[in-house]
């Protein structure tokens, strides 16, 4: 039995040694927004944050993140009625197509903007190239990140929005 802290909530879970965080999050915590795409750190669909850093949960043993702060797509919005600036930008750019990759895309984008609020095109490409979108919405993902970046900078005076 290990204790995981996900989106600020404690989850006591049964995770055999070596069991990846992805499956604990999805099957035991029933937080299904984090997706399975490849299982070998190739596609980014399973991206979550551990202490603010984006990681591939499909290759990260759950036992290795005990005691750390795990954030999933369900936990990035400031509250139930407000979307994260990045989520808002995603809607405004009408980014998702099938949507399956988008939790991972958004988690990578949020991590990027936390590090670098005004990334260049190259920096965006570099940060996002671990996230595959088979629907090919790369242009829209890039535009949405830029839109979020602009909104983020405009809101620096209002820290609540971040």
């Amino acid at each position, binding site marked *: 039995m290990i204790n995981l802290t996900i989106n600020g909530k404690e989850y006591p879970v049964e995770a055999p040694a070596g069991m990846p965080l992805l499956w604990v999050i999805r099957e035991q915590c029933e937080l*299904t927004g984090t*997706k399975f795409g*490849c299982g070998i750190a190739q596609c980014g669909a399973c991206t979550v944050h551990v202490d603010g850093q984006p990681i591939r949960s499909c290759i990260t043993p759950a036992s290795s993140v005990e005691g750390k702060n795990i954030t999933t797509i369900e936990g990035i919005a400031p509250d139930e009625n407000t979307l994260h600036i990045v989520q808002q930008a995603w809607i405004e750019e009408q980014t998702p197509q*099938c*949507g399956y990759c988008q939790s991972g895309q958004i988690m990578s984008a949020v991590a990027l903007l936390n590090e670098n609020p005004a990334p260049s095109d190259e920096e965006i*490409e570099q940060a996002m190239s671990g996230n595959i979108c088979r629907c*090919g919405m790369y242009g829209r993902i890039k535009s949405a990140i830029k839109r979020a970046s602009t909104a983020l900078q405009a809101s620096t005076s209002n820290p609540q929005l971040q």
Partner: protein
Amino acid sequence: MKKWTRRAFIGTGILASGALVIGVAIRPGNRSSKVAGLIAEEGETVMNIWLKISPDNTVTAIIPHAEMGQGVHTTLAMMLADEMDADWSKVKFMEAPADKEYANYVVAKGFIAGNKTFPKFLEGTIDGVFLTAVKSMNFQITGGSASVRFTGQQGMRIAGAAAKAMLLQAAADTWKVPVEELKAEKSIISHPASNQSTTFAELAQAAAKVKAPKQPRLKTPEEFTLMGTSQPRLDIPAKVTGAAKFGMDVVLPNMKYATIKAAPVFGAKVKTVNTSIPSDSEGVLKVLNLENAVAVVAEGYWQAKSALDRLNIEFESTENEGKSQDDIFNGYQMAMDKALEEESIEEHFRSGDAPTALSEAETIVEAEYQLPFLAHATMEPMNCTAWVHNGKCEIWCGSQNPLGAKAAVAEFLDISPEQVTVHNQLLGGGFGRRSETDVIKQAVAIAKEVDFPVKLIWSREEDTQHDVYREATISRMKAGLDQSGNPVAYSHQFLFKHHPPEAADIPYTVPNQLIQFTSPSSFVPWGNWRSVDHSVHGFLTESFIDELAFAAKKDPLAFRKNLTQDKPRFQKVLNLIQEKSDWNSPLPANWGRGIAIAQSFGSIVAEVAEVEVNVEGKVKVHRVVCVADAGFAIHPDGFKAQMESGIIYGLAAAMSGEITIENGAVAQSNFHDYQVTRMSDAPRIETYIINSGNPPGGAGEPSTPVIAPAVTNAIFNATGVRIRQLPISKTDLRVSIQQTT
């Protein structure tokens, strides 16, 4: 042959005879009351199959297609709401349950009639035998870029218009005023002269008793309020919060998990496996030998997968096991030679006398092309949740073909279809893969052995190695030019003909043509892959026409224009792309520009790619300009998104997409060796839509066939190297660049 118009369609009495035929007017007492039971909640009136009015005056569009990201729920709801003059902010959508009453015969009819002409002899059968036949074929398929073209145009719009006509009539009867004096706007019907108004909901009961109109008047484009606008897609908000539920995300009480390993060699069977629960595995509940596959059921996917990986499974050997990709291509060459020699080759199209014209031509151009197998690699790996209980079966999955799924399950379990319930979920990509039922049958085979619901999840490796593949193929092309460089003869021998039947046709004016094909046997399972045969012929036709332009010493765009003078839509598309792509502007060294154009699924799409080939021979596609004659784009932004999607999907295949067979099995396994386009390789895409006034064309597929030739033609322009084998990564471009620099 008679033009298949709305008048002819309705004129056959479809609306009048059985209102169900296009789904209009479900009234108590007719056989559609069965449908009412499925979708109507307390206090709601079902007006017709494709819409529902609730007491709170919301209109629900019931949409017989799966949402796989094409925004079909929004677009089809818009078509219905616009004709109905419903308040868009109060319009909801619901996917039709997989029930025979929803059998999407409109789709079938569109396919059969090709959306062009409708044979007279079929008209009389349309609402009788035809409908029955189509229903028994279990049509409720999302594919062939058909949703808007067929369901939307012939189902949703007419349903919306008919509903409005009935509501207006109901109001006229209630208020005893002439119907012409009434106005419908934002889900309210008013009579300005007497200052009366009421909501759709208030009138719904009365309207359900009104006789359905024979020919509801459809709006002209000038009257559209929603069609042609880009309303925010209804499915998007849930897709940014993680709330959207895909097949993979189904959670049921007491549900367990399973994963599977099928015999790597196609057609092989399990020889030995120990099905007792392994002592070294935690959480394993069952090991099942399914004859051609082994499945493990466990408390979680990871437990099942770990146990499966540790099992010792022996498979029987088969005749396919020694086969390699080279054997397959050699077999194709032999089959082609044999078909030609024995004259068993089949004719696809013939005009004039191509052999004679070839023998008399001034210049002969000849080329042989080769294309690889392709996997779908949908983002969401295959999965299905099944629960077999009390002689019934319920399944949860994202399917492009829920009725087919239902029929397959019923047949597999030998129970009646009424005992099978399909709960369709969002699809994490379809591209044709999710119209198959193989995974569903596997899930049911597992669920049948346990007394709890079980979610079968394929690993990405299984997904890559047990797909149904776009055919690998070879093609022989030959053409003759006259002294002024005009093509006078065109001959093409290709392999395999699936659909659409016209895929191998060329749009160009060439007087003498001979197009033939033969279909060798293949042990690699085939399936619909985005744009189907167009994904092959788009590349063949548009590469070869480029070769002809070069041989004729003509500009490739001007050459195409010259050969499509009888096709005004092509001319318009080519003119616009010439302008938007700055076709004649200079490019830096080692850059090239290439064009391709094709008509598929009712849309005409041209693309110009701008590529750079660097000294290492690496190809970078910087920009793609796309011009599409969409007929009429109901949702322009959604149409653009589909063009972008089809381009990136086709680009992944063109650059590196290749499934090869080694020892009878697929050699690739995951995204590291079946590489797809990532953001760093994605070009800037600019899409321009032409609304030509033709019927709306497909959106999901038509941008895919032309991207590969646009890129290889651009590579030729940059380097002088003609790529005749896909993927592009097979060709070493270093030498060519070193020579030119």
